């Protein structure tokens, strides 16, 4: 896989990584000839985010079909995962990013060295090269279907942002009650029996919000549905949609089946699907408990314990409203892959860790902090030199040539969908105003 991004695409890419970083720790990359997929899943596997980056997002994008070498290894590295945090740090928006003119990403497998290579072409011919270890894996795919969801709505992210302002910052879960002609959002917390120790600390602010369905761009709910899901993941996608100025759509069914939130930027730039597990209400789950499903994670056992406590409490006390319980897990499926039929030798891949090669080397001297001991500074210079050597003069020249051809390409092809043009123009305007004054 090889992709080249222009400077205008870097900010959306940073936001995409930021959004993924709020949900999971690993980035699953899957390159297909017609699109690049970014995905992540949270630790409890209750939320899964999928970004589809279409070729229009990039200046150039190319990926091979699956190529398998004699060891059964996928040399094209069509599916792999890297740690998200270092990647986010590379693209974090700041002053250093303003100098970047274009970015080249490449999945490179040479011998035993699997690396995601990111080359940032900066002003004055400076090149910054980052290399991240990646590990080959089967692609990550949550099982869900937007088309099969009977209920859906679309709303401006600004309005949802206003809604969530009313809720307490510490709130973890939210209940959404939808009817064909009304919608209510309610903060959801475990109800505590009234005769327990009378303290304020264990009780939380309860918020209920009833919204006019006229506020929605599209509202299509066929029947009654009440679902409970995690608020933190929802906030991740809403803040992303807000930053991108795009509306959010939701596709959902009944309690227990996942809710899908989507953000897309047309035409064919990117699409985000965020799948969040919803909570099965206590009583409903008890009915199902005859077919008791083994809890796959240690977290599940904890929840079971608390469930038992809840139940024993319940037996002693007056009936209370139904207690929603454990999360339904989103089944994250790993479809059969060519490589999976032949198990990979375990020791062949280095463990996921970072050696000196991967450390980010700030090449621009202005960015270097003033107080740093000489030894580390020397090491840094050495590393910088090594990086330059690694890139090689030919590479630099070639890169410059490429940049030239890119310019030509962009000028020749005005049909390429423009990303964040308004923001870009705004910046331009500000510069002009400064000059005028």
């Amino acid at each position: 896989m090889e992709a080249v991004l222009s400077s205008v695409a870097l900010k959306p890419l940073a936001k995409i990584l930021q959004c993924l970083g709020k949900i999971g720790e690993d980035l699953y990359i899957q390159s297909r000839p017609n699109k690049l997929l970014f995905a992540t899943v949270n630790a409890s596997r209750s939320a899964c985010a999928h970004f589809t980056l279409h070729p229009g997002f990039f200046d150039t994008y190319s990926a091979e079909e699956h190529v398998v070498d004699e060891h059964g290894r996928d040399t094209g590295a069509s599916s792999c995962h890297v740690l998200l945090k270092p990647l986010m740090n590379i693209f974090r928006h700041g002053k250093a990013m303003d100098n970047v003119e274009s970015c080249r990403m490449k999945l490179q497998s040479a011998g035993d060295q699997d690396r995601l290579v990111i080359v940032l072409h900066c002003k004055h011919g400076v090149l910054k090269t980052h290399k991240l270890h990646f590990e080959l894996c089967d692609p990550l795919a949550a099982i869900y279907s937007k088309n099969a969801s009977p209920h859906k709505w679309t709303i401006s992210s600004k309005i949802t942002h206003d809604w969530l302002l009313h809720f307490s910052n510490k709130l973890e879960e939210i209940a959404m009650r939808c009817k064909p002609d009304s919608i209510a959002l309610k903060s959801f917390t475990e109800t505590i029996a009234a005769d327990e120790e009378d303290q304020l600390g264990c009780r939380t602010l309860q918020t209920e919000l009833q919204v006019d369905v006229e506020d929605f761009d599209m509202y299509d709910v066929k029947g009654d549905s009440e679902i409970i899901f995690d608020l933190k993941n929802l906030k991740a996608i809403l803040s992303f949609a807000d930053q991108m100025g795009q509306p959010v759509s939701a596709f959902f069914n009944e309690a227990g089946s996942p809710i899908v939130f989507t953000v897309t930027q047309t035409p064919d730039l990117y699409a985000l699907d965020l799948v969040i597990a919803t909570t099965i209400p206590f009583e409903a789950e008890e009915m199902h408990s005859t077919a008791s499903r083994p809890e796959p994670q240690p977290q599940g056992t904890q929840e079971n314990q608390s469930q038992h406590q809840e139940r024993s409490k319940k037996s002693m006390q007056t009936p209370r409203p139904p207690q929603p319980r454990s999360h339904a897990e989103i089944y994250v499926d790993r479809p059969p892959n060519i490589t999976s039929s032949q198990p990979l030798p375990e020791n062949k891949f280095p463990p996921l860790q970072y050696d000196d090669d991967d450390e980010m080397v700030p090449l621009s001297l202005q960015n270097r902090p003033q107080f740093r001991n000489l030894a580390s500074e020397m090491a840094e210079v050495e590393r910088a030199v090594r990086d330059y050597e690694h890139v090689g003069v030919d590479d630099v020249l070639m890169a410059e040539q490429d940049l030239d051809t890119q310019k030509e390409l962009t000028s020749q092809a005005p049909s390429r969908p423009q990303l964040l043009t308004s923001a870009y123009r705004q910046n331009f305007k500000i510069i002009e105003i400064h000059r005028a004054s």
Partner: protein
Amino acid sequence: MRLRARITNAGLLIKMAQSVEKLSKTWVILFTREYVHFIVGKSSVSETMQMFGQIKQDRIFEEYLVESALNNQIFVEVSAEQFVRGLKSCHQALDVKLKLAKKDGWPMLSLNITNSSRTGNRLYLTQDIPVRVLQSDESAELTEPEVESQQVHILLPPLNDLKTIAERLKAIGTHVVVAANMNGELVLKVVADAVRVETSFKGLINPELGQPDGTPAPTPQTALKHRTAFAHVRVDMRDFVKFLHSSIVNPKNVICCIVDGQSLLLYVYLGQNTDSDDGQFIYFIPARSH
């Protein structure tokens, strides 16, 4: 026990709540027929900072009703953070109804808010703020502390100015000495090992204090002999900064009273004049030795 009202001046109530939010995790709100009081800190512990706030109910409410077996007084304890969060939703609302309710067996201060969304459509919001209703023996502890009469009383300069200064001083030392005299002079002093910083104000007003019936207050026997003699009190910097959070309400009149070596009393008036019906905060900051 019944309590209900329509909030007419949510903005003022939010500002009042915000200015005392940082004082403590929980505070007590006392509803009586005439007044709404905010009480922070128990008087049984005279070592800690305390705050008593009050405002006449008709300044913020209408259709106000309070009934209880305890002399028509209702004491509720609330979490500062939750109360402020819930109240903030009333900002620029079309209609807000407040009532004391019981939900799932828990007492709540329930706010029913009607608002309009960005697009002009109706938005109905309920904020249930958890409260704990205090028993009569607990509420009996909540009385204003008794202090000796002050040596000095002086009008403070604008609190926003003081706040900027105090935040600088906070970085230097943990305690601040507040000193003032009856000649319009105020000094804030911080002493650290390496540095000693003093900020002094001149030309401030020493107001004449009167009694409720309008007669001038009798001169206390402990009064200083000279107008230019200073009274000092050394207080915890954090307490002083907490008091300065009341700059949110942008008060015109703040009277600082110093009981030499013992305590600092601060009267913050929310209204244009020194009328406690328009809203008043009284801060009691005890002196710290070392």
